[in-house]
């Protein structure tokens, strides 16, 4: 593909090709483009995977859980603890949302590690939509719970009056940049990880097509792919965790702006 594009040095793999969105079923509902694309497909598969793990695996309601039920219960308790630790007990109301968010990102990330799959979270629009949902939701909760008292969040106590305007300005900017940092962190991590994998895979192909010495030379990038794959699995889980835990913290801020 990339070779046809005539990229520099005839690199055999286009690392960006995997992020391209291809329409599978064109669909237009009331002037809105709702085409079923490869991205849609993997979103649906993600929902299926999460549903399988949390609904199907617990269908037996076993007193002594099997493997799949254990995974469901561990995820449940993991997220429940995360919400309790970061947002307090009154944050439990939003537990289903945080759980859905965490599982959606986690499974979307993990499914993206399958060969030929599509990385839903490598598109800024998806991560930004999720982050914006969190940001708007948290802000609404903050004002609904505390009214204008929510603005205390931007006025830290114990700051001298002279530098208070500066501090408040910084606090407001950092608050407003939350959705941006939240979405770009996830998007950039997934994007960079998958590009890295593809680039090393390209090295393997490029070297191994260069004769016997090249085949031996290809061992090194191949080993790197193995190592980076392991690292990517870590990143997949970590980014889902970071997204969810930051959401919990923002929620905690909205519920207890005095702290």
């Amino acid at each position, binding site marked *: 593909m990339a070779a046809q*594009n005539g990229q520099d040095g005839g690199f055999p793999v286009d690392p*960006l090709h995997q*992020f*391209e*969105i291809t*329409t599978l079923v064109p669909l237009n509902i009331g002037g*809105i*483009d*709702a*085409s*079923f*694309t490869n*991205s*849609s497909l993997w*979103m*649906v598969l*993600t*929902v299926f995977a*999460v*549903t399988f793990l*949390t*609904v199907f695996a*617990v269908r037996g*309601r*076993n*007193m002594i*859980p099997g493997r799949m*039920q254990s995974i*469901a*219960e561990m995820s*449940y*308790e993991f997220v429940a603890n995360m919400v309790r630790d970061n947002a307090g007990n009154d944050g439990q109301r939003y*537990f*289903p*949302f945080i*759980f*859905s968010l965490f*599982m*959606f990102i986690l499974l979307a990330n993990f499914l993206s590690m399958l060969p030929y799959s599509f990385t839903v979270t*490598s*598109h*800024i*629009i*998806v991560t930004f*939509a*999720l982050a914006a949902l969190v940001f708007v939701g948290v802000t609404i909760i903050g004002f609904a719970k505390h009214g204008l008292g929510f603005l205390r969040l931007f006025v830290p106590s114990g700051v001298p009056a002279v530098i208070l305007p500066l501090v408040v300005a910084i606090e407001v900017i950092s608050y407003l*940049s939350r959705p*941006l*940092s939240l979405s*770009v*962190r996830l*998007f*950039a991590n997934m*994007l960079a990880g998958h590009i890295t994998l593809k680039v090393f895979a390209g090295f393997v192909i490029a070297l191994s097509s260069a004769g016997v010495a090249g085949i031996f030379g290809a061992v090194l990038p191949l080993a790197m792919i193995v190592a980076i794959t392991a690292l990517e699995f870590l990143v997949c889980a970590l980014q889902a965790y970071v997204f969810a835990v930051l959401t919990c913290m923002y929620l905690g801020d909205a519920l207890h702006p005095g702290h």
Partner: protein
Amino acid sequence: MPENAHNGIVVGQDNLGLQSEVQIPEAGHEGGFPPFNTETFEAQLVWLVITFGILYYLMSKVALPRIANVIEERRDRIADDLDQAGQFKAQTEEAIQSYETALAEARAKAHAIAQETRDRLSAETDSHREKLENELNKKIADAETRIAATKEAALAHVRGVATDVASSIVTQLLSEDADTAAVEKAVDAKLG
């Protein structure tokens, strides 16, 4: 992290700017940067809303209540079992307690019975022995008197025999009848 984020954005904007300036119709397909291809945003958002909405509904209505139920049930069951185990333990301790009291009582009773029996037996033995000893003492006393009488009789005989023998010897030696009174006197002197 924010710095990285900014870098990402700047690079992105370059690409995005390039696309919008050059106006490639299918920018996403040929060399553009797919995540910044705004043409795909609408469909992605629509499907994100659909899928995440369904997921949220399934989680909040089906999955999470079910898992919570299972965990809660197990917690109750474990608590019940622990309670029951505690009750059984208390019962066991009670049983051990009563067993030990019973054992101590039985031991004390056995001790008392043994002591009583021993006392009774020793008393019986004592009286028996006393009676035997009395009988024996009596028999010994009888025997002693008998021995004394015999001894006396024997001694009396000895004196007669001695006197006769002495008289005969004197008669044989002196060829004359011995003075009986003198012999008796000499024998008495010898016999003490």
